[in-house]
């Protein structure tokens, strides 16, 4: 492979960024649709089944034809799908109100901060170890160049991700403060306390993975942890415990049910985004769902087997000679991320919200000691076996 010049590097980088952004921007609205559907099904409802009138239009005539034939139409499942387009259009076209007494600069800055922190993390995530595919030879300028599995292969990738992800809380706190209203302020304070306290067990739960893998590079960590090369078979234990601790902290970090205290509807009107409307609110919304995808990506890569089939370093059962199942694949990664995203929604359909003191109890009294014990187990396994 010839070394790339500056222009080629920039163009390839842009192509990869755009590709990742497109995937994320498709996944986020699909997630909102999935949320409606999954919660509906879990509560024995149907969720969204139609967008507009049931008697007019092309899809409606198609549907009526199938009803007439005595069949349930295929479209009745997907008819709720256009709702996500309507959601996006509504967010973009809605009037953007800034309260008179709000701090305009900070009020505008905080959604941007939130969304940048959420999307910046995607740059260090590797979706495939090594080169995904090569650009076609016939294309000008970029012909034959590799399309990497990651936008940037940072050698302290995990540190970068954790650092950037924790910036997101500034968006929430600053936005809450700049709204100049009591409910957002209370929501922002809660959010700050919650995210700061859950940052500790989150990082501590990732440390066993770092110890076992012996590196901070995202791609290397993921490959070592899932194939289990040079790891003791006992390493399954800390990885298994760490997975659940990480997932719990991930729920708290993304402000999802059961830890969605910052936007507790019953107490604080809508929490930190009470005063936000239009696309500014849309940015917070986008950031929340992007954070969900990030947490799922990290959990998949470090604990859930990454690009390989089996989770928790059990991949060594399948030898690399098996045709499809023994090799890393982008499909496995995406399937596992989707599964974890489903778990996010599933938990939301199941659990009620924690009380504030219970939330702090879980964080400080249980998760931190548990993750420290887990870290100790991992260290013993790393150096004794």
């Amino acid at each position, binding site marked *: 492979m010839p070394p790339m010049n500056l222009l080629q590097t920039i163009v390839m980088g842009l192509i990869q960024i755009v590709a990742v952004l497109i995937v994320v921007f498709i996944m986020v609205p699909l997630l909102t649709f999935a949320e409606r559907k999954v919660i509906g*099904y*879990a509560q024995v*409802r149907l969720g969204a*089944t139609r967008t507009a009138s*049931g008697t007019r239009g092309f899809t409606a005539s198609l549907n009526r034809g199938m009803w007439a034939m005595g069949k*349930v139409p295929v479209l009745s499942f997907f008819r709720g799908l256009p709702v996500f387009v309507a959601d996006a259009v509504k967010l973009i076209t809605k009037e953007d109100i800034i309260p008179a007494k709000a701090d305009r600069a900070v009020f505008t800055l905080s959604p941007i901060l939130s969304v940048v922190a959420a999307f910046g993390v995607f740059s260090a995530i590797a979706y495939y170890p090594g080169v995904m595919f090569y650009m076609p030879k016939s294309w000008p300028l970029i012909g034959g160049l590799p399309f990497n599995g990651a936008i940037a292969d940072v050698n302290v990738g995990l540190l970068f991700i954790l650092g950037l992800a924790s910036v997101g809380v500034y968006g929430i706190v600053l936005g809450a403060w700049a709204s100049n209203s009591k409910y957002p302020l209370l929501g922002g304070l809660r959010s700050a306390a919650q995210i700061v306290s859950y940052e500790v067990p989150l990082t501590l739960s990732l440390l066993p993975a770092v110890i076992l893998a012996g590196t901070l590079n995202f791609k290397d960590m993921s490959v070592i942890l899932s194939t289990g090369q040079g790891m003791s078979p006992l390493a399954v234990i800390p990885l298994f415990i760490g997975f659940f601790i990480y997932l719990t902290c991930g729920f708290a970090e993304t402000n999802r049910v059961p830890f969605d205290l910052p936007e507790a509807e019953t107490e604080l009107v809508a929490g930190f985004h009470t005063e936000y409307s239009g696309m500014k609110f849309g940015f917070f919304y986008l950031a929340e769902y992007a954070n969900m995808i990030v947490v799922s990506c990290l959990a998949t890569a470090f604990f859930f087997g990454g690009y390989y089939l089996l989770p928790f370093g059990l991949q060594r059962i399948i030898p690399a000679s098996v045709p499809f199942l023994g090799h890393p694949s982008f499909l496995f990664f995406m399937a596992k991320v989707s599964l974890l995203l489903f778990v996010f929604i599933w938990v939301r*359909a*199941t659990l009620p919200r924690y009380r504030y003191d219970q939330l702090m109890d879980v964080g400080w009294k249980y998760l931190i000691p548990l993750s420290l014990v887990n870290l100790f187990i991992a260290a013993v396994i790393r150096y004794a076996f």
Partner: protein
Amino acid sequence: MRLLKTLIPGDIAAGLALTGKYFGKVFFSANRKKVRAHLKHFTQEYPEIPVRLAPRFRGRLTLLKDEQGEIKCVCCLACEKICPTQVITIEKGKMEGRKMPYPVRYDFEMERCIFCEFCVESCGFDSIILNHQFELAAYNREDFSLGMKGLGQNMFAPSPVGKYSVAED
């Protein structure tokens, strides 16, 4: 003990299993008509699928005929007397070959009817029922005056307006 209970979240697992069970149930049956009929607590896709009504649902007043095709009503005027809004008007008459009186007119003003089913309860001859129709809206006031010989709707057949509703079985 409490520590162990917190560390091993059995309650959360049980809750997830419950919602997961229902999710699977609906997921695998949502687009199949045959399975759907067995699910009781389920959103009814009403305009497309005929809605399931309780057997005692109170719809529009209907006059019944017996096996010979004769009107069962004998003009005892019990329904007319008991009706709280006085929407029923009956005119007694005689017919050849019939012992009992015969209704020449049986008028029903649906616009004032409150669907209380007192008329059906008071009827000693089981000659009227309330059917299962509920889509009874109309554009004209005259459409709510039902008689025995109406063109659009009369006292015997179900009203034609309810395109999707179930004709009683």
